[in-house]
């Protein structure tokens, strides 16, 4: 039984120029204790997908237009009334935001902000919540945690702040943590520490993590399975090694070819020509077809193709390309 099953999720954003379908029929499962990575360019809908899970859209005029978000033992989050969903947030599933600089209330002490989530969901006193907050700071390897409890966010470094945010997310030992680019705002060495911390916490607590990132290096470092997202849809999913070593969708290949460093070291960098399509009026057929080097006429017809297994591919490795064979040479 999967911990989280997302089925045909559709999320719409109201914008001045029309309704943007930021998430357009996304389905995937997250197993207990696994780290599931979602990668894609800015604006591909990866953030909108994970924000939909707990319906955290900030000030944006967004709504879930369809689909199911089934959390094991809890129910369909997409159909749940706001009051009931508030019980789930923080307790069964927690969220880690991208920028630890802005994710903490600047005028409230760190200890109080951690204690707040405990006091919300557990019947404990202030002293007890404070003691729990202290232990949480220790768990995320914050040095001199007693002193940090009394600190305001601006008195901490970026890395420490993200540890505080993680401590807050872990406070009630949720089974699912959704991390939206948790290391993007941090410098490289701190990034590595935070990723190790997330992995270590997963190993000791068995928490499932959905990790959103645009960095394939991050995915290959800590994720078990991954999905590649393009223009509101998943185009490829599978175990990380299989997707990165044998990418079958032209977009995944193009993404890897455009990547400097380990993944494509022996190849020259190839930028993906063109820009992602409009989410308000997406092109017919495969969303990537207008930029795809392999596209043929039938790629631009009908509905976007669904994820499907390919002959000879590893189990669970699916992609959404209708072409039988995509040559390796041109990506």
């Amino acid at each position, binding site marked *: 039984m999967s911990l989280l099953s997302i089925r045909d999720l559709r999320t719409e954003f109201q914008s001045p120029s029309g309704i943007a379908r930021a998430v357009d029929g996304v389905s995937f499962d997250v197993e207990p204790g696994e780290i599931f990575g979602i990668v894609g360019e800015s604006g591909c809908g990866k953030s909108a997908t994970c924000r939909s899970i707990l319906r955290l859209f*900030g000030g944006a005029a967004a709504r879930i237009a369809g689909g199911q978000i089934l959390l094991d033992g809890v129910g369909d989050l997409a159909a749940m009334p706001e009051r009931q969903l508030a019980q789930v947030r*923080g307790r069964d599933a927690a969220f880690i935001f991208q920028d630890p600089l802005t994710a903490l209330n600047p005028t409230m002490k760190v200890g109080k902000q951690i204690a*707040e989530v405990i006091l919300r969901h557990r019947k404990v006193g202030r002293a007890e919540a404070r003691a729990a907050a202290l232990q949480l700071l220790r768990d995320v390897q914050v040095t001199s945690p007693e002193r940090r409890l009394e600190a305001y966010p601006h008195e901490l470094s970026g890395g420490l702040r993200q540890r505080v945010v993680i401590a807050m997310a872990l406070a009630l030992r949720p089974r699912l943590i959704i991390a939206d680019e948790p290391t993007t705002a941090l410098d490289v060495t701190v990034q590595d520490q935070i990723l190790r911390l997330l992995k270590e916490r997963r190993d000791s607590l068995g928490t499932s993590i959905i990790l959103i990132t645009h960095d394939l290096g991050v995915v290959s470092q800590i994720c078990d399975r991954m999905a590649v997202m393009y223009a509101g849809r998943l185009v490829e999913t599978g175990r990380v090694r299989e997707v990165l070593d044998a990418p079958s969708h032209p977009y995944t290949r193009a993404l890897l070819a455009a990547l400097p460093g380990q993944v494509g070291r022996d190849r020259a960098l190839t930028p993906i020509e063109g820009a992602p399509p409009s989410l308000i009026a997406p092109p017919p057929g495969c969303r990537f077809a207008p930029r795809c080097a392999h596209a043929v006429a039938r790629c631009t017809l009908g509905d976007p193709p669904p994820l499907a297994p390919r002959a000879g591919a590893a189990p669970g490795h699916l992609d959404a390309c209708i072409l039988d064979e995509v040559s390796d040479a041109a990506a």
Partner: protein
Amino acid sequence: MFLAILKRLLMLVPVLIGITLLSFLLLQIMPGDPASRAMGTRASAEELEAMRQLWGLDRPIWVQYLYFLRDCVTGSFGVSIFHKQPIIALVAARLPYTLAIVAYSTVIALAIALPFAIFAAARRGRLADVAIRQVFVVLIAMPPFWLCYVLILFLALGMGWFPTGGVGEGFLANLHRLFLPSLVVGLSTAALIQQSLRAALIDTMQADYIDTARAKGLRGREIFLRHVLPNSLISTISIIGVRVSWIIGGTVVVEKIFSVPGLGSLLIDAIVSRDLPVIRGLTVFFAVMVVIVNLITDICYALADPRVRLE
């Protein structure tokens, strides 16, 4: 914190020297002889001479300035020609009424602005928000003297709920009697607070840490009271600070219309009776109050926002 406050108070000294010099020179520049201006045209030459000696007007200008400085330092701020009393005594008798209007109008302003700001922010861009903004813009634009007479006409003379002016004995009596003047002053403060607080609320509601609070499972009311409102109110502190220092010296019209014996009426009376030392002393006193109110504002700001440090 304590050291920073002490430092700020010490920095007051050069500011005060500048203020005293300026207000002293202003009256020196004024044409004519202060003695004859004070005594009127029918005073004899001997009387004028005696007057000049009494006030030290026969001394060199810098000695006169030192006299004035002495009066300021010893706290008397000079002696009134008309009342024959130290100016500080006149101020002390009237300051309570002015401060009462300051406090009362601020309370009224907050009571009006807070709910309307919250309501407008919650319905941002909708009809209610736009309507509220228009009403408050009209309030800002309305001349206070006109508002005074409208209120007197309807609430005092028409309905008979309030007296047309004057002050009473005791807290409750003044709560009643000072309501209308405080309302006039408070309405424009309310308009300023409503506009800035509405903007601050909308800003804060979109902050990332509000999403964090929601992700913790906090409910709307908890998020609003613990995270949105406290962070939004910080900007209101500076508006109240500016308004308070303005009200202390600026309620001349309102005090006069409602016959409130505050500092504003004292200033008007001094100008009408050509009581130069009072004008000069009040100028310095107002300046000192502005500096002190600013300091208090900065202290409140530093207390409310841990990122702000008192320098």
